[in-house]
């Protein structure tokens, strides 16, 4: 298998090509631009089409249209651009359209800055646009995961007939790291009996999100709710790192998730029993990861690039049975492994114990 050095954003493009994606609609924005740039150069050769839309709203609605015909389709943008797409994502969730949306998170609010951030956690995991819906959200933390999760995203989208979001960040998008271009595992055939591709010789199908009566509306909502509950039950993913015997746990995903691994290793060298739970699906949030630890661990620290968003899900997952603290950097800054460890030692009074 080929091991190559590529930028994170390019890796997403390559994985999309190898996932059988044939259509990409987007509008460039730093730090996500290399996704559309890479596909512009490489998609046509693979039989794909890139179209630069007039804006992000146009791009997401083109995804909507393409998905209605059963095509594998993707769009990519960065935080302010993803905000513009929210109406289209809400409609796509309502019509249950498989599509992959990449958010290379930059810091905000507003136009914000170009540095890496996790400030779009709420937007990604709680629906994002209007109405009560969810998109499956995957949080890669390495080049290899950018590749693997992009492939997985297309399959999850088809499997559940639902938009899937890849929540990357400016750091992962811009950094070059080796990646093994694995062949795609053979995916099952997905049901496409719902697509609109010309009704000659069969009954007409209608893909629309409007419910004419409140009774129909409630029936629809109950149906979607059931689907989301099923996804929550079956699709939670996470990684545990030195968690089994841990007295304290870090909880972190994406770029900070990998920084926390170094923190854990440094802590272990000092005799501090620190571990890490790294959520991979942010929605569904991996509640199940916390079940073995919620009566056992003395305290947790979420490490985030925002004012504390995932911490709410962690507190719910551990039913507030222990102190859960937040260590965060913002505005495009990343924490070092040591500043996280200092915070943990400080919060739980571990400095002396560690040195002894």
């Amino acid at each position, binding site marked *: 298998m080929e091991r190559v*050095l590529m930028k994170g954003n390019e890796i997403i493009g390559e994985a999309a090509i190898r996932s059988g994606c044939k259509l990409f609609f987007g509008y460039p924005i*730093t730090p996500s631009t290399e996704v559309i740039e890479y596909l512009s150069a490489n998609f046509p050769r693979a039989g794909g089409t890139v179209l630069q839309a007039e804006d992000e709203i146009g791009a997401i609605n083109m995804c909507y249209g393409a998905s209605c015909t059963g095509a594998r389709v993707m769009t990519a943008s960065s935080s302010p651009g993803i905000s513009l797409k929210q109406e289209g994502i809400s409609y796509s969730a309502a019509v249950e359209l498989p599509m992959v949306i990449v958010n290379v998170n930059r810091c905000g609010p507003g136009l914000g800055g*170009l540095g890496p951030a996790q400030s779009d956690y709420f937007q990604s995991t709680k629906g994002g646009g209007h109405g009560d819906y969810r998109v499956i959200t995957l949080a890669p933390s390495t080049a290899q995961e950018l590749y693997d999760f992009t492939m997985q995203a297309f399959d999850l989208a088809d499997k559940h007939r639902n938009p899937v979001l890849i929540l990357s960040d400016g750091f992962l998008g*811009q*950094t*070059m*790291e*080796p990646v093994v271009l694995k062949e795609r595992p053979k995916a099952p055939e997905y049901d496409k009996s719902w697509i609109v591709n010309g009704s000659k010789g069969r009954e007409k199908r209608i893909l629309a999100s409007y419910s004419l009566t409140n009774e129909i509306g409630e029936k629809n909502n109950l149906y979607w709710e059931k689907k989301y509950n099923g996804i929550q039950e079956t699709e939670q993913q996470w990684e545990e790192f030195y968690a089994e015997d841990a007295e304290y746990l870090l909880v972190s995903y994406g770029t900070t998730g990998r920084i926390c691994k170094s923190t854990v290793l440094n802590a272990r060298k000092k005799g501090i029993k620190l571990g890490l739970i790294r959520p991979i699906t942010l929605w569904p949030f991996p509640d199940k990861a916390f079940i073995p630890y919620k009566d056992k661990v003395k305290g947790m620290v979420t490490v985030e690039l925002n004012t504390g968003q995932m911490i709410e899900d962690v507190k719910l997952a551990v039913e507030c049975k222990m102190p859960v603290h937040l260590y965060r950097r913002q505005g495009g800054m*990343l924490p070092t492994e040591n500043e996280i460890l200092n915070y943990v030692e400080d919060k739980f009074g571990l400095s002396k114990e560690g040195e002894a």
Partner: protein
Amino acid sequence: MMDKVIIAGFGGQGVMFLGKVLAYAGMGSDLDLLWIPSYGPEMRGGTANCSVILSDEEINSPVIDYSDAAIVLNKPAYDKFAPRVKPGGVLIVNSSLAKLEDVRDDITIVQIPATEMANELGNTSIANMVCLGALLPSLNLVDYEKVEKTMDKLTKKRPQLLEVNLTAINKGISFVNE
């Protein structure tokens, strides 16, 4: 074992390329590695920097608080990154464009007139490679042979650039060894 290197200078001095040479040299040796560019508005006309981490085991944290080595191609880069080299580390300074006054005494500082040496070779844009040569003897995981192979690949499309780049690297190595 790890090499954490920061490279900085003006946009146009070949900062990103220098980092890529190190990164691809690491790829050639099956090392784990990261090439991390600075990106954003500062790239338009201002300073540029990138960092490279090479490791013979898996790299977790990509954040460099203190680097093992740094190459600074001008004075603003020196001012910004000299304090970020860890005690005992190595700092390569392009002394053609950075005159130093009070210098740290807890790191090895190599002041090399890289721009002048590049001019002597007839190509001012290879000062970056002179500095790479000056750094190579201090690195753990990459040596001249690996860089030579990498340069061969990177200059495939413009083979006339191979020799001058290698000469520049060798000049840098000789400068340190003498």
